[in-house]
Each structure stands twice: as structure tokens, then as C-alpha cells.
């Protein structure tokens, strides 16, 4: 018998109800999945955010480190111009120091320690050791010498001034006429420039500036030639007397030749020779005594008031 309309409707309602129930069940299942996943996802997100913070901090540190290294490399690439820069500042201060000392307004005096005729392979290193120990700068009036490149370089590295004392110091030759003298000086300038990359601009006459006129040359003309080639010159205020020979006097006598008279001055230059073993022996005591008299030690520069131009 065919189903009655009522029965068909009832069946349809049941099917609809069951379908809706199945759909609701599926949706419930999906919702439960989403709900449970949310908790896990939240925890993952918190952990990932912490990881990301750590990574960002690490990135910042490494970037700072990298920036610092880049600066270091730039400094190294430009080290020569950085040296020129700091030297310019230093020597401006040094000139100011000498001017203050001369004016009597300073609570210090200025001493220029100078060593002529070197470098000497056997003795100059000893002088450099003492200067390094006392952290004192000096000026080396050098000749042109082979086989002692490392000593020139050490003088430069330790911030001593390398000045020109002519190439040969051959007094009878170089003082025979002005051109010969200037050529000898320029030869030494070239030697030092080729070796160290520095152009000397301070010189001392072998035997001192009076030697020019003693030799029959025109002092004014000589000084004018020096000016033309960019040199200033200096003699000395006091000397140990070691020009007479390295053991001409005892170390104590060498020292007293300087320290017995140095207190009378505000600015001095001291002439010594770095071949003199007795000068080397008295150098530490001399530095200590001059320090006690209020002296600071500076290397010479062209602009120093004590250098004649």
C-alpha cells in the first residue's frame, strides 16, 4: 500500500532532523578542533615572539659590533692621515706650551732633548729604551746612515721628531759653499722621506750655526736658502759636552753640565750625541732632575718658537 501523505511528511521531517543533527555534529567537531588548536597556537605565538626578541637583540649587538669593526678598518685604512691629524693637534699644543713657558704664566718649563749624529746601531736603541721608560719625547738630528732602518722607524713610532743634520756631516766639504751644503741637506731629506714618508723641516748645522760664518760663508744667505726649502734651524741652550767624545767626561759631569744651569731657564734645548755611552748612563738621572726642576719634554717642530726661521 502506498504510504500516506502523513507518513511521507514524517519521514521527510526525520531525514531533515537527522541531517541537521549531522551537520551540527560536524560543525561541533570542527569548532572543537579550532578551539583546541587556538590554545596551542597562542603558546607557539608567545614562544615565537620571545625568540624574535632575542634574535632582534642579537642582530642589534652584531650590527653594533660590525659598525665598530668598520670604523676600525676605516681608521686603519686612513691611519697615515689620522696620524697627521693628531700630530697637527699635538704640535699646536706643544707650541702653546712653549709660549706659555716663555711667558712665565705656566707652572711648567719646556725642555727639548736632542741627540745628534745618529742613529748608531749599538747605542741609539739604549737611548730609545730610556726615553720609552720615562715616556719622554726627544728630537734626533740624524745623518744619512745605511743598515739602521729599524732604528729610524722606532724613533718615528715612538713619536720622536726626526730632524736633519745633513747627510754626511763632512764639515770641510759641506761648508765649502752654500750649494754643497744645501745639496747635502736635501740628500738627507730625500733619504729620510723615502724611508719613513716624513719630510723633515727642522735642521741643525753640524758644529752649530756659527760654523757657517767660521767657514767663511754668508750666514744670511744660508738662512735665506734654508727658508726657501722650508727649513727652520736650532742650535742649543745647554750641552752635556759629549761632543768632545763619548767618555770625554764622566756621566755625572755630563749631567751636571746641564742640570747645574737648567734651573735658570724656562725653555731649553739640550745637545747630546747618541753615540755617547756616558750620556746614556746619566740620561735617566738627568731626566729625573729636569723633571724635578719643573720641565716637561717635547719634540721639536718647525712651528716651535725656539726654532729659528
Amino acid at each position, binding site marked *: 500500500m502506498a504510504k500516506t501523505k502523513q507518513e511521507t511528511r514524517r519521514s521527510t*521531517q526525520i531525514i*531533515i*532532523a537527522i541531517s*541537521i543533527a549531522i*551537520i*551540527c555534529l560536524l*560543525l*561541533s567537531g*570542527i*569548532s572543537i578542533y*579550532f*578551539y583546541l*588548536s*587556538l590554545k596551542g*597556537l*597562542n603558546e*607557539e*605565538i608567545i614562544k*615565537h*615572539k620571545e*625568540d*624574535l626578541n632575542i*634574535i*632582534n637583540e*642579537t*642582530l642589534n649587538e*652584531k*650590527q653594533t*659590533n*660590525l659598525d665598530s*669593526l*668598520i670604523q*676600525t*678598518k676605516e*681608521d*686603519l*685604512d686612513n*691611519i*697615515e692621515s*689620522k*696620524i697627521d691629524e*693628531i*700630530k697637527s*693637534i*699635538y704640535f699646536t*699644543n*706643544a707650541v*702653546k*706650551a712653549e709660549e*706659555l713657558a716663555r711667558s712665565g704664566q705656566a707652572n*711648567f718649563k719646556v725642555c727639548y732633548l736632542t741627540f745628534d749624529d745618529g742613529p748608531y746601531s749599538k747605542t741609539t736603541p739604549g737611548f730609545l729604551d730610556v726615553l720609552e721608560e720615562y*715616556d719622554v*719625547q726627544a728630537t734626533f738630528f740624524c745623518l744619512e746612515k745605511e743598515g739602521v732602518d729599524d732604528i729610524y*722607524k722606532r724613533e*718615528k*713610532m*715612538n*713619536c720622536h721628531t726626526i730632524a736633519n743634520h745633513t747627510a754626511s756631516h763632512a764639515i770641510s766639504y759641506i761648508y765649502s759653499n752654500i750649494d754643497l751644503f744645501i745639496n747635502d741637506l736635501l740628500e738627507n731629506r730625500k733619504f729620510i722621506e723615502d724611508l719613513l714618508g716624513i719630510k723633515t723641516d727642522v735642521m741643525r748645522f753640524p758644529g752649530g750655526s756659527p760654523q757657517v760664518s767660521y767657514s767663511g760663508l754668508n750666514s744670511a744667505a744660508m738662512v735665506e736658502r734654508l727658508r726657501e726649502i722650508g727649513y727652520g734651524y736650532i742650535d742649543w741652550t745647554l750641552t752635556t759636552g759629549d761632543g768632545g767624545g763619548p767618555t770625554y767626561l764622566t756621566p755625572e759631569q755630563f749631567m751636571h753640565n746641564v742640570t747645574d744651569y737648567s734651573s735658570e731657564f724656562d725653555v731649553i734645548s739640550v745637545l747630546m750625541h747618541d753615540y755617547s755611552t756616558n750620556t746614556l748612563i746619566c740620561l735617566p738621572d738627568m731626566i729625573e732632575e729636569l723633571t724635578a726642576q719643573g720641565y*716637561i719634554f*717635547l719634540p721639536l717642530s718647525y712651528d716651535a718658537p725656539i726654532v729659528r726661521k
Partner: protein
Amino acid sequence: MKKITSVLYIIILICFIGITALLGYRFLNLKNENNSLIQEIDKGKSDIDELDREINDLDKEINILQEDKKDLFTEYQNWLRQNKKLEEVLK
């Protein structure tokens, strides 16, 4: 009664769909956020590796330069120190 039953069924269905949709929407958002974080972390790690490489390369270059320019570097440090000392005296 039949109408009430149909409406009830529809309301129930809408509720279930609504809840599922809300949960699904939240789930997708968090999933996207998590994926972004994972990508950022991977990029960060890759950036760290790149920086490490740059730092190592630069370190090597600097070591070579420092060796080649050891004397100049020492001279520079010495000038800095002497100038600081002189500036103290002039104060």
C-alpha cells in the same frame, strides 16, 4: 508546531555555523600571525648568519691590516696618548 520546529532548526544551525565561523576566523588569524612570526624568525636567523659572515671577513681583513700597519697603529696610539698627556699639562 511545524513552523516553530523549522525556525528552531534554522536558529540552531545558524548558532552552530556562527560559532564555528568565529572560531575558524580566530584560528586563521592566529595561524597567519604565527606564520609571519616564523618567517620573521627565519629572516632574522638568515640576517644573523649574514652579519656573522661579514664580521668574520672584516675581522680577517683587520687582522691582516693590523699586522701590515702594526708600527703605524702603534705610532697612532702613541700620539693619542702623548697628546692627551700634553692637554692635561695645559689645563
